[in-house]
C-alpha cells in the first residue's frame, strides 16, 4: 500500500511521476529558475535540484560538466538551498529535493543543514554517497524536520533491498543499472525483475533513474514503476542550449527545451 501523502502533503499522486534533475547554477541561477518552470509546465511532479560538487563519484561525464559550469558560476550548497525560495517566488510549486554529495553537508553541519532546508522550504534531500549504514543520524534529523530523505537501491543491493525499501521516504530511487549516471540505450529484463522486487517492499512510489533518455524508455519504465527520473538527458538539452543563451536567444532556447521534454515524457 503506497503512502498517499508525502512531501508535506504536496505530492498526492503516487504513480506516473515525472522527476527531472537539473544542476543549480547551470549555467546560471536565473536559467535554473527558467528551466524549473518549463519542467513544471511539462508535468514534472518533483524537482531534483542538484548541487555541484568537485568530486561527483556517482556521476558520468554529462553531469560532471554541468557541475563544473555551475561551480565556475559560483554555486555552492548554501546558495542552492537559498535558490529554493527564488524558485517559489517565480511560481515553482512542486516539491524540491536537494541532491547533494555528503561532504558539503558535513561542512555546514547536519543540524544547520536541516535548519536551512526547513527555512528555505525544500521538501526533500538526497545524498548519493550516504548509504543506509552511514545515514542514521541524517535520516532521524530529516524525519524530525518533516523533510523526505530519499534512499537509493541498486540491482546489486541484494539482501539490503528489503531493509532500504522498508525505510524509504518520499519516493524510492531505483538505480536501473550498475554504473554512473548517463544515457543508455536499453533496459534489461534483469532491470525489470529488480524493479518488481523493490516495489514489493516499498511503502512509497518507486522511481527509476540512471540512463533514461528516450520516450520508449519512459514508456517502458511507466509500465513497471511509479515514476521516472531523468537527469543526464535533460542536462544535455541544457548543454545544447548554451550557445543560443549566450547569444541572448533564451526564449527560443527555452521553447525548444520545452518541446524536447514534451516529446520525451508524452
Amino acid at each position, binding site marked *: 500500500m503506497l503512502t498517499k501523502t508525502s512531501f508535506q502533503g504536496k505530492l498526492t499522486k503516487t504513480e506516473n511521476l515525472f522527476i527531472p534533475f537539473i544542476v543549480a547554477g547551470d549555467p546560471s541561477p536565473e536559467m535554473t529558475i527558467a528551466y524549473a518552470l518549463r519542467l513544471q509546465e511539462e508535468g514534472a511532479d518533483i524537482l531534483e535540484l542538484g548541487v555541484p560538487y568537485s*568530486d561527483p563519484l556517482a556521476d558520468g561525464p554529462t553531469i560532471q560538466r554541468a557541475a563544473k559550469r555551475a561551480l565556475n558560476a559560483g554555486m555552492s550548497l548554501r546558495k542552492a538551498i537559498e535558490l529554493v525560495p527564488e524558485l517559489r517566488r517565480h511560481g515553482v510549486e512542486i516539491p524540491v529535493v536537494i541532491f547533494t*554529495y555528503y561532504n558539503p553537508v558535513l*561542512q555546514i553541519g547536519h543540524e544547520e543543514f536541516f535548519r536551512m532546508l526547513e527555512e528555505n522550504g525544500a521538501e526533500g534531500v538526497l545524498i548519493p554517497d550516504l548509504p543506509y549504514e552511514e545515514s542514521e543520524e541524517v535520516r532521524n534529523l530529516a524525519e524530525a524536520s518533516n523533510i523526505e530523505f530519499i534512499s537509493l537501491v541498486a540491482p546489486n543491493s541484494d539482501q539490503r533491498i528489503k531493509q532500504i525499501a522498508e525505510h524509504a521516504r518520499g519516493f524510492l530511487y531505483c538505480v536501473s543499472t550498475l554504473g*554512473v549516471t548517463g544515457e543508455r540505450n536499453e533496459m534489461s529484463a534483469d532491470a525489470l525483475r529488480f524493479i518488481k522486487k523493490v516495489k514489493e517492499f516499498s511503502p512509497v512510489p518507486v522511481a527509476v533513474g540512471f540512463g533514461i533518455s528516450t520516450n520508449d524508455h519512459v514508456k517502458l519504465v511507466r509500465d513497471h514503476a511509479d515514476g521516472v527520473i531523468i537527469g543526464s538527458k535533460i542536462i544535455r538539452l541544457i548543454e545544447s542550449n548554451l550557445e543560443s543563451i549566450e547569444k541572448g536567444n533564451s526564449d527560443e532556447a527555452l521553447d525548444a527545451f520545452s518541446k524536447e521534454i514534451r516529446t520525451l515524457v508524452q
Partner: protein
Amino acid sequence: MLQVFPDVKGRFGDFGGKYVPETLMGPLQELESALDEAMEDPSFLEEYHHVLKEYAGRPTSLTYADKMTEKLGGAKVYLKREDLNHTGAHKLNNAIGQALLAKRMGKEKIIAETGAGQHGVASATVAAKFGLECKVFMGEEDIRRQELNVFRMKLLGAEVVSVSSGNGTLKDATNEAIRYWVANCEDHFYLIGSVVGPHPYPRMVRDFQRVIGDESKKQFRQMEQNDPDRIYACVGGGSNAMGMFYPFLEEKSELIGVEAAGKGIDTPEHAATLSKGTPGVIHGSLTYLMQDENGQITEPYSISAGLDYPGIGPEHAYLFKSKRVRYESITDEEALDALKLLTQTEGIIPAIETAHALAQAFKEAKEMSPEETILINLSGRGDKDMSTLMEHFQEEV
C-alpha cells in the same frame, strides 16, 4: 592499550566508514568477506609471504647508515630499505596481496589508480605475473609528467587510461577508477594503492604493508636489542607509514609522519593534509582533507607526485587526533637537500617522497644523543625522479 581498529563499521575512532554510492555497497561487502576469509586462511598468507620472498626479494635490508650518523653527530641512523623491493618501492607488497586476493575471488581483471606511476607499475607488474588484465587510470597531467612510468606500465602489458576530468591528477584518476569500478564491479577487482578509500581498503592495504614494520622490528631488535627511539615515514595517502608504524603502535617508539609542505604550509601550494586540512569525506572515507569553505575538494601541490594527494588514510587521521603519531611537514627545498645529502653520504638515491621523511629525521637526529636511535622508512628509490632531479641539480653536479 589502543583499541583494535577498524571496528565493525570500518571506523578508526571517528574516521573511516563507507561513504559510497549504493552500487558499491555490494562489491565492498563481497570484498570484506573474501578478505576476512583469506586472512584467516594459513595457505593464503603462506602464498603471500612466499611471493614476497621469492619474487619481490624480501625481507629488505635494514641498513645502519654509519656515514650519515657520523655526519649528523647525533642519534644512530637506520634505514629500512624498501627501495630494494622489486619495482623499487614498498608499493609492490600491497599489489601482491591484493592480486592474490583478486585471483582467489575469481576476478581476472584489475583496475588501479596512479599518480606518480609507482602503484600503476606495481599493479601492472602483478597483473603480468599472475595473468590478470590490467587497466591503470592516470590523470592526463601526470601522464605528461611521468612519461617513463607510463611506458613501463604499457611494456608490462597494462592499458593506461588517460583521465581528463577535474585537473587530471591523482584525485581525478581515483574518481575515474571508482566510477569504472561501479559500472564493472561484477568481474573487476579495484586494487587501491594506499590506505585510503572506503572500508575495508584502509585496513587491507595496511595489513599488506605491515610486513615493513614486522621485519623492521625483528631486524632492529637483533641489531640493537631494543626498539628505535623514533621512527620516521613520509605520508601522502600514508601506506608506507601505516605499514611501518602499525607493528610499533603499542611499543614505546615515538612515531613521526612527514607530510609534503610543498612551497610552504603558509602558501596555497602544499599537500599538508593534517597540518592544514579539516575533517571531511574523500573517496569514500571520513578523514582529513584539503577543501574550501563550501566543502569542495581543492588541489594539493608537492614536487613529489606520490605525496600530491588532498586526503590521507583514515587511520592516520585517528592517530593524529589521538596523538599517538606526531605529524610534521617538509618543503620541496628541504626534501631535495636531504635527498642530495643521503645520496652523497651513503650512495643511496631515495625517491623524492622518501626524502621528506629523511629531511625531518636529519633535523631531529642532530639534536639527539649518540645513545639514541632512529629508523627511517626508505620507502622507494629515486630512479623515477631523475628528470625532476636533473632540472633541479643540473648546475650543481
